[in-house]
């Protein structure tokens, strides 16, 4: 079983979710990488990204999550499929004396993978074929303090690093490419966060606050593969975010959770200029329900909805940017892995549209959690 689990993790270790909308902004904001959390609606406050979730941590633990995703995009009556697989996160936690915990993690924060035949952005005599690879990753560390075995407060620091490469190819008749324009983007920044949670046998409450983040992005472009344009440096001011969640256990083998995240993306600044007309304030709502029909099997279902933070372009000649709506149905299961930990499976069916381009996709998350402590974790949020 252990070999199978590790093997599955390795197979999925080269995958990633992607969206046809990933050409915008910093790309798709990736939900916290944890299959259990994913299957319950991907609440940020109840995720590993909240250092205040470590109420219980008897032993060293870690969890590796991989993600496989496929997406069918439909634009102007034409459907296309994109799909990839790659790791989406790793997190580990170490108990320290007097209730302190040290956590480490690596997450894909923004995903910038895509492969798009852009019909709406093209002219009749040519069209774009745009491929992008990369994203922004967060190297997290956090320090938590568990109080009275039912509460925890924590602070975290995340080093944001990332890079992407976009190839914009102009295709004309006979499948020939006129030229390729390449944009390379490197990002770096520092982020802080503070979180807390209170977890009792019947109720759980969690909150996570992330102050505004300054991100430095260096863009280099090469036009036609020949002309190297000047390098541009952007100072991005990402707005703060506030996340909250509540959990309620109506009876022993069931738990209901609700989550909300708010981030005023309209305050995103680029070189001190606010681009409120291009970005959208985001209120993401989620809910999930977990049921344990047996001691060794957890079944989960969830739902979330939001308008992603970037606005999108409708087909020409419409100039006004339009928001994207996203609704996701989550479900999954968790089983213990004897002598190892647990294996959680999370699946999402995603529906996105801006009224012109529709996406229907699926994501499959697989989290492999190490140590017996994770068996107990099915009964309680956090570690």
């Amino acid at each position, binding site marked *: 079983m252990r070999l199978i689990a590790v093997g599955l993790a390795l197979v999925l270790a080269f995958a990633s979710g992607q969206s046809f909308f990933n*050409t*915008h*902004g*910093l*790309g798709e904001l990736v939900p916290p990488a944890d299959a259990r959390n994913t299957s319950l609606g991907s609440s940020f406050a109840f995720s590993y990204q909240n250092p205040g979730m470590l109420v219980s941590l008897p032993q060293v633990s870690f969890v590796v999550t991989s993600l496989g995703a496929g997406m069918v995009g439909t634009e102007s009556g034409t459907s296309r499929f994109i799909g990839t697989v790659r790791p989406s996160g790793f997190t580990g936690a170490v108990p320290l004396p007097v209730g302190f915990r040290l956590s480490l993690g690596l997450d894909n924060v923004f995903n*910038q993978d895509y492969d798009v035949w852009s019909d709406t952005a093209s*002219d009749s*005599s*040519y069209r*774009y074929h*745009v491929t992008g690879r990369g994203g922004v990753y967060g190297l997290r560390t956090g320090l938590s303090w568990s109080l009275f075995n039912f509460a925890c407060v924590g602070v975290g620091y995340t080093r944001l690093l990332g890079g992407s490469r*976009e190839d*914009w190819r*102009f295709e*004309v008749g006979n499948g020939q490419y*006129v*030229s390729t*324009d390449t*944009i390379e*983007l490197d990002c770096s920044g520092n982020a802080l966060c503070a979180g807390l949670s209170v977890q009792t046998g019947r109720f759980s409450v969690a909150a996570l606050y992330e102050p505004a983040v300054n991100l430095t*992005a260096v*863009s280099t*472009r090469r*036009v*036609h593969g*020949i*002309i190297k*344009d000047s390098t*541009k440096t*952007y100072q*991005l001011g990402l707005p703060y975010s506030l996340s909250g969640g509540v959990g309620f256990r109506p009876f022993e083998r069931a738990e209901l959770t609700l989550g909300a995240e708010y981030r005023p993306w309209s305050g995103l600044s*680029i070189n001190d200029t606010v*681009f409120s007309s*291009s970005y959208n304030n985001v209120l993401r709502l989620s809910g999930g329900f977990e049921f344990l029909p047996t001691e060794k099997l957890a079944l989960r279902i969830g739902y979330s909805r939001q308008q992603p933070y970037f606005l999108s*372009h409708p087909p020409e000649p419409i100039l006004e940017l339009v928001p994207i709506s996203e609704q996701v149905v989550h479900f999954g299961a968790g089983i213990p892995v004897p002598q190892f930990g647990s294996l959680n499976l999370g699946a999402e069916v995603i529906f996105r549209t801006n009224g012109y381009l529709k996406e229907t996709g699926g994501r499959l998350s697989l989290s492999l959690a190490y140590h017996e402590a994770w068996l107990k974790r099915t009964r309680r949020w956090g570690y």
Partner: protein
Amino acid sequence: MYLGRDDFYQSRMLLRFPLNDSALDTTTAVQLILHRADSAAMSFVCRPCSTDWNTDAVTWRLADSVTHWFTPGGDYWKVDVGTGRLESDSLVLDLDLSELDSAARHAFTSFGLLFFPQDTGFIAVHSGVSQATAPRLKLNFPNNKSLTLNASDDAHLVDTVRVGGAPALTVGSGVAFRTWLYFGLDSIPREATIAKAELKFRPDIKYRRSDTLRFGVHRLTEPYNPKGKNANFSSSSYATLSYVVSADSDSVAVLDLRSLVQFWSNYRDSLGACDSNFGLLVMAEPEYSLQFRFNIRPAGPAAPVLDLLYVLPPKDRFFR
């Protein structure tokens, strides 16, 4: 090589054989062998050429790069040494040298023969490029001995006299006519991708011997001035078109110049000007193909236009 004539063109052939002055002294007969390269038929006469000529430079007006014929079209002795009709794949023609005096013989052995078409139309004759079909001279000697010589030089001269007239933007084959066009492209942003660049015009056809006219576009590699028609240009074409003459002769010729315009747009001087854009030549492809000639009107709806569509590089992702 072409031999023939019509209302607009006349094409004569020149052949020279490696003979010395005494080569004909002991011959009993001299035979000329020609091979036809197409299916037409043509009657002709041939006469000794009276002026030296250079195969690389000879034209209707010039015997070499500096010497004019006394008479455009070639100087010759007015003695018919051969009269024949080329109507099968090859022709063996007995030459009659009896009427040649010593000067004319010297002209024949030194400067060769000039061929005059007698019928309307044109015929293609194999030149000396192929040994098997090269024009030959067979010298017959007593005792059934003979010597066969391939032509050492050959050329055809095309009369352009009747083609001239008012200056026009002309493109032609057979007699080469080239048209130089220049389009100012400095306003195209340097970083633009040329998605479409089509040269369009409506040829005003003046003469053609085929329903398909093949012409193309070459890039000038140096400024048109001061060299003018002698300005260097690229040997390979950037675009070619097999223009099929329609019934109403009114279809538009379209040449795809995307790669050429992209090339011009990529290379700029410090002021942003396209410093490789010296214009283009529209010329027949190849210029020795069946004769045709058309004019490009310099103004009006049939005038040449460069239809451009360019795309600017994508914005950085934060501004899309």
